[in-house]
């Protein structure tokens, strides 16, 4: 099942399959270690549409909800 990162449930993880964004934004994602093939999981998200904290390779990154919506992931079965 495909979702975007903002829709990923708490504790759920998925494999990054691509970006729904322009060239610059994809580059920024990639420079933070978020790129196709990576396993990503959601650590937490702040209330009222606040930023989402995700974890890739044991390293945490926080990003705005709108940005998270641009990262497409394939949900992994637990």
């Amino acid at each position, binding site marked *: 099942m495909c979702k975007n990162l903002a829709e990923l449930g708490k504790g759920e993880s998925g494999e990054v399959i691509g970006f729904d964004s322009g060239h*610059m934004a994809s*580059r*920024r994602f*990639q*420079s*933070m*270690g978020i*790129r196709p*093939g990576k396993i990503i999981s959601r*650590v*937490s*998200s*702040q*209330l*009222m*549409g*606040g*930023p989402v*904290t995700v974890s890739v*390779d*044991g*390293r*945490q*990154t*926080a*990003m*705005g*909800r*709108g*940005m998270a919506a641009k990262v497409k992931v394939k949900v992994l079965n637990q």
Partner: protein
Amino acid sequence: MRILLMGSPNVGKSAIFSRLTGTHVVASNYPGTTVEFTRGHLKMGEETAELIDVPGAYTLEPTNRAEEVAVEMVDEGDVIVNVVDATNLERNLYLTLQLLQTGKPMVVALNMWDEALEHGINIDAEDLEKHLGVPVIPTCAISGEGVKSLTDRLEEADQGDLKVVSEDIWQRIGEIIEDVQHIEYRHPTFRQVLSHATVHPLIGPFIAMLVLFLSFFFVIHTGEWLIGNVMEPAFELAWEPVTVWISAALGGEGFIHGVLIGDLIEGEIDMENSFGLLTTGLFIPIAVILPFIFCFYFILSLLEDIGYLPRLGVLIDTLMHRMGLHGLSIVPMMLGLGCNVPGAMAGRILETRKERFIALTLVSICVPCMAQIAMVAGLLGDAGITGLAVVFMTLLILWVALGVSMKYFLKGETPEILVDIPPYRLPYWKSLVKKVYMRMKGFVREALPYVLLGVFLVQLLYTLGIIALLDRAFTPVVQTLFGLPGTAVGPLIVGFLRKDVAVGMLAPLGLNTRQLIVASVILVIYFPCAATFVVLFKELGIRDLLKASGVMIVVVTVVGTGLNALLRIAGL
């Protein structure tokens, strides 16, 4: 020869820099500390090379001003020392591979090596060296391990033979990582559990409020304790006799006596109120402000080194977006509490012009610096906590209200937050002490001359009768609007130069609590001190500076008048 120290934010570049040069540089555990580059010198055998600490950048495609500076500087270097975070190798290699494409001779410092091992991350440095074609040296900048071999191997700096087009960089990195890095699974440590809790949507804000409250409590109380039990007695014992002697030698009056010692109050020297260069001029910055500066920077440096600030940025992001900013703007605000100058400079980590304008205007209008807080605390402290609370609540409400209105009126975009959350690290005490010491030294060096100049100016303006003249001219305005006596005009004028001196001048005026509160708030808002003003000009340009000044004038009139009226109604 010019050596560039380059790497992503928060990889320990500044720590490596101070290890290599012996120069003291402020290094922190959150992205974007080095907004202005630092130079130092490094001995290489017979030769002395120039070492430049370049602002952190994730890529050579800049997204903010700090990164732009980094990219512009690449051309100017002869050799690059690329500092890489071993706990985060994969992300860091992106910049490494981009740097290799520039054809500059390079060495790689694989920093935080010890921490990587602790996390079960094993990296084969020799193998990585083969892949990159440049020397790779494991280092631990905090303890100094590996720094010697880094210096020794600088001569072997090489252009490397890894050529790759940008579309293939990530694939290439994947292959390298596969080959050189091996990760053993470790159970989540206490630090990781804590890390989760501090960004938890419900527990996180609770912890944040607790942390901020305790920090504030610590700074105010420890600061006052230090003043009353250490600094004041020390001054009384060691310095006051000297000033008494000088005063007697000068005959107790005259212009020179006025400048050096100031006015005798009931025939005696009063360190706080005499207003001479050798009395109040030294007493205010050293005995009253320095203890607060020490406590504040101790706490701030501790929070930085532990890695708490990016998390605070995440928690406050939603609120900051209502103000046209994103969460990381908390960094310039926090730094501004120490001194508005570094606060305004830290605005460079923000991406758009709109954000920088809002952040810098808020810092200069609503954020009192520690020197000012120290003086206000001394002034209002006697009347209990209420006065202080009213001042800070007013500023806090104004901070939010002004941010919200600027967001509404200003065109432009506010990008979303995207920030690396570094793992919590135990502070390394030695570097923490050094950092606090450097920041205190910075305060003494930057602020003391201004304070002395301010005190001198006060004596001069009074002697020449200029203050009396201005008193008469402005009395109707300050009296009608703010309910202050004409004598408060003097402090307002000196406030252009130094806010702490200005607050100090309020003490002998015999103001009541309402007037003290209004005067303190007005002094915070109405105009940044001279040093901050210069930085605002540099960072914003003349047009935006004029705009910000316009906002200040409107805000100070509205808030001063309103607060005065409200406090009257409240019966103060």
